[in-house]
């Protein structure tokens, strides 16, 4: 049983990367101090804990820092090894989870960011196609990983890839709301649509996923998100 103060997480509530660490800690029922470190400015503590990137999340375990969200998730899985497993034990299944998590981070989330920043109908349409195309690929991956009808990429329980992708659901919903469209479509990606509901309702997740309205207001203030004019008939 961890003593209070042994585990600290430096975070910022809108960050999907911080959400990943919090979900992992919740899965393992780890008691931790959550310290909001909204950036900018970069605090002394954050600068000392993550001198290379100066970014949250940072997990401090006995004051030793661990940085980069998916590396933090793996550390949590390996250190608190007696709790429910986040990564599977089979090397091939682990490689598949890592592959799709890297795809989500390197390709899919970037396409979501491009959508958020795109200006003009043509650019927006192209960005939407990319996001939806990625979701179709992820739907296929979900069918394979969840092994015939299980709720999560990890099977019966939330795993590494669930955390990697699920942490972006808040921002996905914000983009849907701001653009008056559906990106995660029950008709085209039924598996993912159902998965998203199960994920957000999970005990380890619901207390750390931000409310969409709050996230939308944050996006407007921080990134200048503007609602587009409603399409005219």
């Amino acid at each position, binding site marked *: 049983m961890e003593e209070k103060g042994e585990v600290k997480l430096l975070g910022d509530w809108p960050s999907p990367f911080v959400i990943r660490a919090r979900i992992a800690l919740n899965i393992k029922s780890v008691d931790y101090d959550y310290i909001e470190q909204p950036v900018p400015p970069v605090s002394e503590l954050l600068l000392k804990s993550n001198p290379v990137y100066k970014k949250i999340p940072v997990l401090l375990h006995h004051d030793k820092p661990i940085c980069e969200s998916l590396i933090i998730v793996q550390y949590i899985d390996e250190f608190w090894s007696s709790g429910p497993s986040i990564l599977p034990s089979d*090397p091939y299944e682990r490689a598949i989870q890592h*592959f799709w998590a890297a795809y989500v981070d390197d390709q899919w989330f970037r396409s979501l960011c491009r959508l958020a920043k795109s200006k003009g109908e043509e650019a927006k349409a192209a960005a939407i196609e990319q996001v939806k195309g990625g979701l179709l690929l992820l739907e296929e991956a979900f069918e394979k990983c969840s092994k015939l009808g299980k709720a999560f990429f990890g099977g019966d329980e939330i795993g590494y890839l669930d955390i990697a992708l699920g942490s972006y659901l808040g921002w996905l919903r914000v983009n849907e709301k701001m653009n008056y469209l559906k990106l995660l479509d029950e008709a085209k990606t039924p598996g993912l649509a159902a998965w998203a509901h199960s994920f957000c309702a999970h005990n380890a997740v619901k207390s750390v996923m931000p409310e969409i309205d709050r996230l939308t207001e944050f996006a407007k203030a921080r990134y200048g998100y503007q609602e587009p004019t409603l399409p005219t008939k």
Partner: protein
Amino acid sequence: MAEEVILLDFWSSPFGMRVRIALAEKGVEYEEREENLNNKSPLLLKMNPVHKQIPVLIHNGRPVCESMIIVQYIDDVWNDRAPLLPSDPYQRADARFWADYVDKKIYNIGKLVWISEGAVQKAAKRELLGCFKLLEKELGDKCFFGGDRLNIVDVALVPFYSWFYALEACGNFSIVAECPHLVAWAKRCMERPSVSKSLPDQYKVYTHLLELRREHVARLGAQLQAQQAQ
């Protein structure tokens, strides 16, 4: 059970070199298949439909893609010898952090050094040397990033030693003058057959990268002409 291990590869790819080194460290026998990147094989397109890139490790018919994911897989499967990660969770996290840092930075910034010129190249050189110096600091007095054996950081980084001649020639600077400890580390790595047999000759790489640069400049020129004609 007979293991079938095939590596779809390209001789000058630093990412392919990472996998070669990992397999060699573990003493795994495999069949290497050289891909023509201008005419990718049906096998490559089938085994890596998402990225269509090498390296791809095909182990008993099942593909594993993305070089550092393949390296981790190799370490997990052949876990009875030459560990590429320590057993302590904190040290593992630390090694993963630095391997990820190499992955995020060195290829993209290094490429700008040999492919671009002027202000872009100058900025890239400065940034690359900054990265190398940070890695030198992380290495410290150790023989390798893994201590007395290679770990995933060594495996991630040492393939870029094959770029050093090209970087210096194209960028007109001396890496050994700026980062002597890093060059000494690379030479220690090269004393291991797993590394020396996995890295191509630096001059051969230089002529290849020059060719890629020529093609890149020609493409840019053609694009500019097309824009001006509009």
